């Protein structure tokens, strides 16, 4: 058995380079000015100047192949990048999605023209995508989606409604799932520009007033044949592939650890970290977060070796989600003033993590997958 837990000198150097870059580029008042959540106009606009700088410094796409503007790195670099970004509450805003999964879907399923058009833009760090998946009647049951695509003479006509679409109000493109027939998984994937006639975006007020989600309506939107990604009716395969990347993409364990460290520092400063209950609770959270981190690394390791991850990713999601919930309980119990705006990172953490057990596949769905695919248990009903 070959077990190696260390980072290579190159990876350590890469992380240092990132830290130096962030130290230099991030505004000193970042958390006061921009901690409105990654869907806020402030963060989206910031990403439009920040990501080109990352690209210029060759830090935007470390693990992408050189031919698409990357550095031929390993998936490890992507996680180092994500971790360091989360130290700053993700200054890439929505553009993390470009790097984490939209790009990979385009590389695997795109035509040469699609790759040329989209991957170049992503590599320059100035394109906002949104994700047209969920619908009012298709959340956890995504395959129940009703948005339809019908063939026309020159392409397709798309009609329907998407919901919980983060970033749509400022997005350039939408990655749309649409149904092409009544069969449950007869779904295709389309790359739709947000400025074509028939696309309407209506904002949904966020839970914290400054979060930003939207409804997106497609009213007989005409798109050319070249908007189709991959083959007709094969969208489910594309989405399964893409979500495999998406769902281990955000290093919530890292974000959780930073929030915990800040909370503990504040408690120490106020002489309130001597209580054995507080210390034990903090210790338990660290243990779970570290388990989440190692599980995430295990998924990366399997990806590097091109082996199936099974349900390791789902177990990681559950472990990390529970750690974050414990962390939020910790804040509520021992630092309630953090919730009313003592430390902007902690306030932001608390507010932003409400969606942690819902978005990108609910907690319950993760447990179902672990039970069914991991343990071979039968489906409910």
């Amino acid at each position, binding site marked *: 058995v070959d077990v190696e837990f260390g980072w290579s000198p190159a990876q350590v150097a890469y992380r240092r380079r990132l830290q130096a870059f962030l130290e230099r580029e991030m505004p000193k008042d970042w958390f006061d000015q921009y901690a409105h959540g990654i869907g806020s106009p402030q963060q989206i606009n910031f990403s439009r100047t920040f990501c080109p700088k990352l690209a210029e410094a060759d830090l935007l796409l470390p693990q992408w192949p050189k031919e698409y503007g990357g550095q031929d790195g390993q998936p490890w670099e992507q996680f180092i990048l994500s971790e360091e970004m989360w130290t700053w509450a993700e200054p890439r805003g929505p553009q993390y999605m470009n790097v984490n999964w939209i790009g990979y879907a385009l590389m695997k399923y795109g035509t040469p023209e699609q790759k040329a058009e989209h991957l170049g833009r992503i590599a320059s760090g100035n394109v906002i995508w949104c994700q047209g998946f969920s619908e009012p009647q298709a959340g956890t049951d995504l395959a129940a989606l009703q948005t339809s695509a019908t063939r026309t003479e020159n392409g397709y006509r798309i009609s329907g409604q998407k919901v919980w679409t983060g970033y749509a109000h400022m997005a350039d493109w939408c990655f749309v799932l649409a149904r092409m027939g009544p069969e449950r998984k007869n779904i295709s994937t389309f790359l739709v520009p947000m400025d074509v006639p028939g696309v309407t975006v209506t904002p949904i007020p966020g839970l914290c007033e400054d979060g930003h989600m939207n409804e997106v309506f497609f009213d007989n939107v005409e798109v050319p044949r070249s908007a189709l990604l991959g083959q007709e009716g094969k969208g489910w395969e594309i989405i399964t592939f893409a979500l495999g990347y998406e769902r281990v993409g955000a290093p919530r364990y890292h974000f959780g650890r930073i929030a915990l460290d800040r909370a503990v520092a504040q408690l120490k400063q106020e002489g309130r970290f001597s209580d054995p209950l507080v210390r034990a609770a903090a210790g338990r959270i660290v243990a779970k977060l570290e388990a989440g981190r190692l599980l995430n690394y295990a998924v990366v390791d399997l990806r590097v070796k091109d082996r199936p991850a099974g349900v390791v990713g789902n177990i990681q999601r559950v472990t990390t989600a529970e750690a974050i919930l414990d962390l939020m309980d910790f804040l*509520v119990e021992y630092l309630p003033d953090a919730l009313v705006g003592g430390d902007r990172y902690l306030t932001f953490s608390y507010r932003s993590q409400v969606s942690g057990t819902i978005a990108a596949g609910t907690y319950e769905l993760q447990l179902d997958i672990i039970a069914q695919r991991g343990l071979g248990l039968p489906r409910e009903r």
Partner: protein
Amino acid sequence: MIDFGLDDDEREILAAVDGFLVGQAPIDRLNPAPTPTPNHDASILPKLGQLGYLGLGLPEADGGLGLPLAVELLVFREFGRHLLSPAVLGAVIGARVAAHHGDRKSVEAILDGRAGVGIAAPLRQGRGAPRLGEPFYLLEADGLGQCLTWGEYGASLIPLDDFAPPAELQGLDSTLSLSRSELSRTPTLEAVAGDEGEDIAGRADLLAAAMLVGSAEAARDSAVDYVKTREQFGQPIGAFQSVKHRCADMAVRATSAWSQTLYAGLEAQAMGRISPLQRHSAVALAVDAAVRNGAANIQNHGGIGFTGEHHPHLFLKRAHILDLLLGGLAARRRRILAAPAA
């Protein structure tokens, strides 16, 4: 003897309060787009006063109706179900403090809703009465003349003039106004301490617990209504065990917290004083039920649970704010341990 029954008068009062709240304080009032208005209920509280609902439990000699604590708890549970501003607690308990000081005019002004009472919660809960320089959160206090604060020492009514000019805060619950300040002079009025102080503070705790239970129940009902109608995979999501068990857990938490709160009140009626053990247990269970049910309601609502246009988030935020002004769960559990055995 423990008697859970209500007499006809009490039932009538409860029905009238309920009717008032349904008309004047629907939950959706807290959700106007694009952002809620802080201190929305400032217009509702005077109406409650005019109807006499702010003096239900105050002795008749002090100008109240002299109804038993249990009735007041039932009414506060209704307030909690509608997420009525905690300023209602400020008024009801503030009137008691004013009565202790023999200030009949002030009692009258509070009871009929002319003089609102905000809440002052110390940043760090200590054992002692408010002291010069001590920092406080001021909740729903803008535009009012005084704030109620209470703690282990008893309770105190502090004129707003005794505080330094408050700095407004962006709170977690934007339906409430929140600011921070410190006492810039020795409080004008002496704190109510001793047995009477403990009785008033205990009462404030129990009424807050009843509000929290109401909020936990409303969150339960909101979740249950939703999972009965929301369908995924061809059936209501309430049919899935993970969802239905969460609803059952919500019911268990709300019911046991209410049972404990009501028991604390009934025991106090029978014994003539509020037992610290029952009081602190009630608060701990009520905070836990309100916070956890608030979170579970968001989870049961899935995507719409974390938007601002639906109301699940309101219950969780309010539970956190009440927890904050009750001094936090950890401190409360310590007080349970320190309480003499019943």
